[in-house]
């Protein structure tokens, strides 16, 4: 390692940052350093493909800090295919997918960004070319290859599949048109192709870079899929309600709510519940992790959490700027104003979410221990 210009000290510092990212104890730093060291020598191959996506998760990935994007792409992983960054185009590009699937079967990690449309033989999302041809302006041109065909080719040989972002994990916005495009979440497709293939869902619209990088590092260090909740999301990132750790929780408990964005209350930031905050029903660690190098997060910007990490986002969480419906707690019928009082009285915050979901008439998502 010294040969590569990295000192032991730097490396330990780096392992420390990784431990912090994963929320692990500092006592594990030597083990992490060792695992990272091993990693740098044999880099796991990654194929990163895109379906009905918006590339938001890739852009979000570029915002990673520990390690930096360039380090991950060059030193930690062998990113063989990623349509937004790779040099190759056309057959030079998709050829890499075909070769890797053959040569490294069982070894590569398949990252899928965006869900998979299945209607019309997969015509709603294609990339790369099939062997067969079609006629086109007087020529024979090779046919477009549907995303569904790529899934069939790449899933069986994947060591693990990572569904990155809410739409890959749960269908997200494109799945709201499932009646037209037949859009399915990645895990549904994988189930049809290789029943026991592990799929890790990393929610978020987009996914936080730490959620992705941390999951991949954890997988590489421990050589097993991390502990998942019942939506197959890593518990280390999606185990707690936003509302539980929110910096405005005291305002919520005191019944102090923001209703006009012109109200500036620097002493006690007002709770955003009345402006539609979905923090009470959303499992993610945004309040403590924050976004963009820790600069800010949604509630920090005086805006409600929209619940973008939940399987129910967007459709079942609309209207986004209206408060969650009136809640009824154990025989009481309090208005939102008194909800803070109830919240304060409830011993476990999870109970609040449980009731909210009941009242919404929706299935409880249960990110972690509620």
């Amino acid at each position, binding site marked *: 390692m010294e040969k590569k210009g990295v000192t032991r000290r730097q490396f330990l510092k780096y392992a420390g940052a990784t431990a912090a990212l994963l929320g692990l104890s500092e006592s594990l730093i030597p083990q992490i350093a060792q695992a990272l060291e091993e990693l740098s020598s044999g880099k796991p191959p990654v194929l990163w493909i895109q379906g009905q996506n918006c590339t938001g998760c890739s852009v979000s990935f570029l915002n990673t800090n520990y390690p930096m994007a360039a380090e991950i792409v060059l030193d930690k992983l062998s990113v063989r295919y990623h349509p937004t960054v790779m040099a190759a185009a056309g057959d030079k590009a998709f050829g890499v997918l075909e070769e890797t699937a053959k040569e490294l079967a069982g070894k590569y990690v398949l990252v899928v960004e965006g869900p998979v449309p299945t209607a019309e033989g997969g015509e709603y999302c294609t990339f790369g070319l099939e062997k067969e041809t079609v006629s086109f302006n007087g020529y024979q041109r090779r046919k477009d290859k549907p995303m569904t065909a790529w899934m069939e080719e790449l899933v069986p040989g994947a060591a693990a599949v990572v569904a990155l972002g809410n739409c890959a994990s749960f269908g997200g916005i494109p799945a709201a048109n499932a009646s037209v495009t037949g859009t399915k979440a990645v895990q549904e497709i994988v189930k049809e192709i290789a029943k026991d293939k592990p799929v890790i869902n990393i929610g978020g619209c987009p996914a936080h870079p730490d959620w992705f990088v941390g999951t991949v590092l954890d997988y590489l260090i421990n050589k097993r899929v991390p502990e998942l909740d019942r939506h197959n999301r890593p518990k280390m990132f999606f185990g707690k309600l936003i509302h539980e750790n929110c910096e405005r929780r005291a305002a919520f408990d005191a019944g102090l709510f923001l209703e006009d964005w012109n109200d500036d209350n620097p002493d006690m930031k007002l709770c955003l519940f009345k402006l539609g905050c979905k923090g009470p029903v959303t499992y993610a660690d945004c309040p403590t992790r924050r976004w963009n190098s820790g600069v800010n997060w949604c509630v920090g910007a005086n805006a409600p959490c929209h619940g973008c990490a939940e399987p129910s986002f967007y459709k079942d969480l609309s209207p*986004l700027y209206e408060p969650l419906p009136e809640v009824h707690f154990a025989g009481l019928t309090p208005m939102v104003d008194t909800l803070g009082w109830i919240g304060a009285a409830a011993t476990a915050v999870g109970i609040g979410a449980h009731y909210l979901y009941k009242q919404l008439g929706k299935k409880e998502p249960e990110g972690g221990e509620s």
Partner: protein
Amino acid sequence: MAQLISIDPVTRIEGHLRIDVEVENGVVKDAWSSGTMFRGIEMLLKGKHPFDAQQVTERICGVCPLVHGTAASYNLDDALGVELPDNARIIRNLCLGANFIQSHILHFYHLAALDYVDVTAVAKYTGNDPALAALRDKIAALAKAGDVYPFLPRYESDDYVSDPELAAILVNHYVQALEMRKKAQEMLSIFYGRMPSFVGTVPGGVTVHPTVSNIAAFRARLNELRVWIDNVYIQDILTVAGVSAYAPFLTAGDSGGNYLAYGGFDQDSKGAEKFLPRGFITGNNVAAVGELDEDKITESVKYSWYKDEGDWLHPREGMTEPDVHKEGAYSFLKAPRYDGKPMEVGPMARMLVLAGLELSGKRKEKKLMPLIEKLGLASAVDACVQAGKFGILPRHAMRALECKLLADEMDKWLDELKPGEKIWDKKDIPGEAYGRGMVEGPRGALGHWIHIKNKVIDNYQCIVPTTWNAAPRDKNGNRGPIETALIGLPVPDPENPINVVRCVRSFDPCLACAIHVIHPEHNGVKEFRVV
């Protein structure tokens, strides 16, 4: 003999794009641009609370969520009759500007540069700059391990920048640029909560008050970026443009001479004065900038996978019914036209409109032309004007010039923020109203239109920049701007059509943006409008 070359996927862009070119005697004779992915976003909004539009339309594109959210905000402001407070107008401008900076840097270094620079040449670096030597060692180690992904494979070409010193500097900047664009994202996060998919605008204003500390945090990053843009980005553009092998790209890759800009960055509450002006140019006649008539926008679907009934309609009464089996169609993109003509949108369109207004004296305060002079680009611009052609290199250069103009101006906007004053104009949602929001995104002119009925969204539609640029042919057989730009480019080796992707990428296409409609019948929607 002529031959067809299909490039699919065109990588290092956003989304799913296939390009087919017919090549004869080593030159592109004809070209077809096809969008190959279809989602459906506007129609989700039918029946929804109008405020949801920003959060949903942001998800059209992860590279440009900010622009959609901003267009949606202006669209709603218009429908609700909002009087936007100055603080909100300025914060929106600052954040839009920060997004231009991150997007332009990302485009040049991470999406385009690998078409011009030979990464493998870095391994031969012999100088003693420690950063470059470290980079050399890294690349050499990767090459030795036989794993230079994702830089290889690639299209081979004998005109890559292969001087080890120069290549090392440029690749080092590629890595630096990752950090720089990340800083620009942090700037957005300061006022807007997070990126991508921000939360800080709402109809009527913004959610965060300007304070001494958030202004300072924003300015600190802006200053750092301004230094880097001046000393690195602009210089690298000049360097690449100065490589003699690339001289033909000054005029090669011209899109046909028509340019359209909606204008952006309102300087007053009415939006009468804009930092980037609106207007259009035809036939490369830069000195004659026309005044935009929004009614002249129509869309053709003759060659798109939509039923023909929707052909040649103004977006207001447009319709879209997918027909994936339609004979002769080859794209999920429609073909927007202005006054019947295809139009290039984006930095080149904006800068040429600005140049035209400065040259004709219609714009008093001159900013662009003096910058062009100062950087020694005047003769190159003259050469383009003489030839009546603006090609691949000007497209990259104009993007960088725009980035600098904006970054410098943003510093002044920061001074105009007034902590403690209003940031929101609260308005009730009307029973029925129409609205429109027309802004500029990094990739060009973006329009959102809304019809509110019974206090919910009845109809929502967007026409996005890439639909203009990557459009297929229209009912009159006119090619889209990218299709036209490809014709005449040299492709000496059909196995390595590098010039084709160089040209396409100079437009910075973003396909997720361009295809976002859905089938009306299955959703029980009678009438709706489009892409």
